[in-house]
């Protein structure tokens, strides 16, 4: 029986006979990971310096190793909605830990728990649980939060999607309104009481509409704290969106959805991918569930800026649950209808997020676009990692990166469709999921 206490001894695992994702290519190369450091081993140095030999060698028979998947927009999973604070707040952390352990089995090794628009109390209660959770570097903790993603409440009421309109507000006083809404200790770096180290803010990313009063002027205050500012749920014109990019915005939340569509005389938010004002092009999230966007729109967006293309699920807490009607907003009594992969607000045809897993998005994108496997995997590994300024730590198989991996089996079906299946998931150099077990 495996001991619950991790052994101090470091185990080095070598994967061989595999194709690993490096840049834009799948390279046939061995990969060494250490459970001691939780990182990818500089294997050549270990070989010559410490004469290290792997404790285990795993022959993958040509399967693919990708960095662990990163979902930058996940509203909840396995019946748990990050935005719903239970009556007894102490259970929040407990359920969250359980969700992390389940989530990692879907191949998502790190993610941004995303809060939909809520009132101030909800942020103050939930955010303390949602900050970066990987400090302990324990594989048994499951999926790791890289910090919270606050989607709202500074959104345009006409593009609210399923966010309750009554909680949407403006930031008349600029950044101090954000501080007040989310809580100063959540939006600012804090001091660790024990080690005196400076901890990053619990919030990693904020989605807000640039045309809402006070937002564009607050962008520099947001980004100076290491928080990513994303344009979303907006009526912004091309000019307003460009101004937000010029102020330091680097991301667009679910491109095409909850924003003005591309018009040839007013290209809107999509226009900033056109490089017309010689501004850097932002990253952008795409929901490839086949419902939110037409496959061709996805391909157009990809071709506009392949290096900024990030696949997100925008999944609700209903992922994995059976079809039916589920409660959504307890105050207003609104409910969600789950029919297969589709999720709508009861009584309307409004899309209410998705209930798709990230690897399913990757498979959809592969078949919608006909792109290569490495291009599709990049959109859930190195690109989101670069957006979060985590190059070389997450979403990477370079030496010294965190050893978060997924082992992927590639299948080509009779009708020509390609699909990737997650066979194993490794977190910090230890196996946490195996499809065959």
């Amino acid at each position, binding site marked *: 029986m495996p001991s619950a206490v991790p052994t101090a001894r470091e185990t080095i695992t070598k994967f061989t006979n595999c194709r690993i994702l490096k840049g834009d290519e799948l390279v046939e190369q061995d990969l060494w990971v250490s459970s001691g450091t939780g990182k990818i081993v500089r*294997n*050549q140095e270990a*070989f010559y310096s410490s004469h290290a*030999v792997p404790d285990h060698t795993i022959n993958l028979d040509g399967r693919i190793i990708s960095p662990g998947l990163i979902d930058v927009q996940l509203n909840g999973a396995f019946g748990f909605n990050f935005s719903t604070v239970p009556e007894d707040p102490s259970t929040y952390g407990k359920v969250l830990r359980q969700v992390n352990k389940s989530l990692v089995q879907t191949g998502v090794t790190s993610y941004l728990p995303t809060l939909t628009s809520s009132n101030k109390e909800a942020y103050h209660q939930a955010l303390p649980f949602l900050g970066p959770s990987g400090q302990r570097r324990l594989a048994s903790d499951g999926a790791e939060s890289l910090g919270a993603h606050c989607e709202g409440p500074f959104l345009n009421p006409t593009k609210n999607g399923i966010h309750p309109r009554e909680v949407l507000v403006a930031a008349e006083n600029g950044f101090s309104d954000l501080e007040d809404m989310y809580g100063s200790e959540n939006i600012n770096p804090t001091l660790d009481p024990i080690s005196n180290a400076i901890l990053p803010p619990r919030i990693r990313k904020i989605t807000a509409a640039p045309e809402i009063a006070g937002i564009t002027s607050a962008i520099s205050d947001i980004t100076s704290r290491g928080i990513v500012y994303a344009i979303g749920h907006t009526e912004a014109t091309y000019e307003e969106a460009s101004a937000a990019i010029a102020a330091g915005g680097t991301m667009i939340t679910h491109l095409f959805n909850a924003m003005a569509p591309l018009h040839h005389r007013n290209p809107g938010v999509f226009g900033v991918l056109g490089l017309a004002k010689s501004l850097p092009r932002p990253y952008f999230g795409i929901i490839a569930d086949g419902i939110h966007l037409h496959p061709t729109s996805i391909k157009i967006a990809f071709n506009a800026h392949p290096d900024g293309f990030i696949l997100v699920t925008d999944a609700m807490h209903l992922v994995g649950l059976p079809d039916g009607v589920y409660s959504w907003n307890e105050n207003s009594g609104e409910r969600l209808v789950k029919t297969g992969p589709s999720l709508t607000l009861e009584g309307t045809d409004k899309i209410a997020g998705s209930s798709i897993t990230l690897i399913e998005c990757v498979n959809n994108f592969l078949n919608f676009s006909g792109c290569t496997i490495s291009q599709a995997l990049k959109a859930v590994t190195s690109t989101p990692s670069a957006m979060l300024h985590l190059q070389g730590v997450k979403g990477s198989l370079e030496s010294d990166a965190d050893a978060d991996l997924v082992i992927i089996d590639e299948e080509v079906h009779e009708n020509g469709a390609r699909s990737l299946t997650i066979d194993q998931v490794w977190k910090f150099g230890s196996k946490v999921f195996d499809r065959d077990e």
Partner: protein
Amino acid sequence: MRLIIREDPTSASTYIANYIIDRIKSFNPTNKHPFVLGLPTGSSPVGIYKVLVERYKAGEISFENVVTFNMDEYIGIPREHPESYHTFMYKHFFSHVNVHPSNTHILNGNAPNLEAECVQYEAAIKAAGGIDLFLGGIGPDGHIAFNEPGSSLASRTRVKTLAYDTIIANSRFFDNDISKVPKMALTVGVQTVLEAREVVIIITGAHKSLALKKCIEEGVNHMWTLSSLQLHPHPMIVVDEDATLELQVKTVKYFKSIEAVSASQGFEQILPSKVRTGPRPIDNRIMIPTEEVKKQPTIQSPQPVTSTLLAAPATEYPVRSITPDLIPDRMGSRIAAY
């Protein structure tokens, strides 16, 4: 000298890889009695390593009891530099097979005392029992390892300054910037290679055909250091057709016929059994070479009379008697006294 001619570089590489595998297998190496393999870097051997790795992955050969010594390494570039020979060996061979890291030896171009590093390297080769098979390639000027034209044929492991031509040629690996190219290297000497019990050389491509001609059709010459192989008891050169362009038709046909005849007789051109299995268990391997005790040669244990420059491996000295010294005597002593 065995000269094996194959159609193209791939089949030449495959021939050598298979040959090495057969040698290791018939040697039957153990932990106490490992097979000692000398290894090169460069573009020609890449194909050989590829086949060796494939055969290892197919489970047909194990490198568990193989000790390796590399020919050379640059001085002054980091060990993890993409162009270092450490990186080359790791990338093309060591990382793919089960050779134990402590069994690999590559000269350390960042050693604080480079001369001591060279002396130590020679001692390590001796301690391992000498090299059973030294694999090598050559440059278009006929150099083996970094023993460029004019290197002493009696040279041992040492620091070597690179020829300007070599530096220019290497600059393509260093952003075409000559200032970044290492100017010095550590290399085994010609004599170090010749002391191996067997030497196998791969030569492919038309640009090396002149070197091949100089090395096998003409005399031993320090301007073509590989020509010293003519003094080795068991050399083998494996080439592709392109590399034979400068050879005489007669030479090519001769070596092809030798191979064909021996194949028709049902055997390859194999080595004497003593060389094939190496000197079986050496009980006390000495780390530091001791002073050689000068012994009077006898018929039972002859000593070489050739110069050390031309010395073949110690196990291979031809047994030949020494003419006894003349002892002057009186004629009278031979006549029975009346």
